[in-house]
């Protein structure tokens, strides 16, 4: 039962912040993808930078539950391509569309319904698709720590990589805000 209240509280806080920063506005998302709006992509990368440092500190103090997802060269990549087309068409992703439905956007309601249909179709085909597309190129739960040998160094590499991307987006993207 405690899980439900913690989940509800976490969701409300999450939904509130992503609405306030404009991530639930498909106009901003379209402009971001057209390289005319820099704030949404920079925001997403900043979140990862701060959260990675926060999680590192949390785990150093003995807390936190992590579950890094495995990488399947084919399924993660193909899933990303299908996802990217849908994101580019609608301007929503699975999380933002829940918050946008709450905000009262009708196009988000249709995105959510499409999402439920897509989920049902994938779940129906799971047994046929996963062994063919996911398993053969599954290289396991690889993390940057495995590549660099040390968690602190890996966090540093991530922060530098994402920080440089944020600067690059600032140079190449416009500053319209929808």
């Amino acid at each position, binding site marked *: 039962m405690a*899980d439900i209240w913690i989940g509800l509280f*976490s*969701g409300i806080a999450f*939904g509130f*912040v*992503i*609405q*306030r920063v*404009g991530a639930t506005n498909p*106009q901003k998302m*379209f402009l971001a993808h057209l390289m005319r709006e820099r*704030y949404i992509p920079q925001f*997403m990368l*900043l979140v*990862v930078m*701060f*959260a*990675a440092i*926060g*999680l590192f500190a949390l785990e150093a103090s003995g807390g*936190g*539950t992590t579950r*890094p997802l*495995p*990488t*399947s060269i084919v399924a*993660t*990549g*193909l*899933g990303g391509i*299908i*996802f*990217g*087309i*849908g*994101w*580019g*068409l*609608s301007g*929503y992703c*699975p*999380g933002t569309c*829940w*918050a946008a439905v*709450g905000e*009262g956007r*009708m196009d*988000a309601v249709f995105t959510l*319904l*499409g*999402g*439920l249909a*897509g*989920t*049902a179709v994938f779940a129906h085909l*799971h047994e046929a*698709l996963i062994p063919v597309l*996911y398993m053969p190129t599954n290289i396991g739960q690889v993390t*940057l720590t495995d590549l660099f040998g040390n968690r602190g160094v890996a966090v540093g590499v991530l922060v530098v990589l994402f920080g440089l991307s944020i600067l690059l987006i600032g140079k190449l993207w416009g500053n319209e*805000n929808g």
Partner: protein
Amino acid sequence: MKESGNAPYWPILPSAIALAGIMVFIFASFGPPASSSGFVTTMKGFFLQFAPEYAANKAHYRAMPGPGSWLMAFVLGMAIGGFIAGRTFGQQITDIPAIWAQRFGTSPAKRYATCFLGGFLILFGARLAGGCTLGLFLSGSTQLALSGIYFGVVIFGIAMLTTHLLFKNKRD
């Protein structure tokens, strides 16, 4: 005007610190946050009600908790958070984004049908990859997972390409 920043939206630096704080709270109190999984939980709830044997036999539903779980509460919370934030926000929302209306007109049917298709694809793709923008890219990269960074590069690249083709980069 050029330097007006992100107004009326919150500036991104404090917002990012706030959202990262919420994510770290979720890692501390539950585990990696995810939202496309909430769609599976919703559909599992639907099938548990109307076709319980089907829900019990499909691997994708067996792997995910049903309603009455953190995941269900989290996505419903997101909608409530969006509702509260929207109700207390200065800017009016639109059902059809302005850039869409310029290119395709104000027909709701066209926009809603495209969104249904888009929603179908984001969830089909997310379930194949194992997560979405939150579960795979944000949570995954925070845990330094290669899958999250790989997925992030692909979704940004393909979404940018798709949106460019959709709007043909038309000047307004």
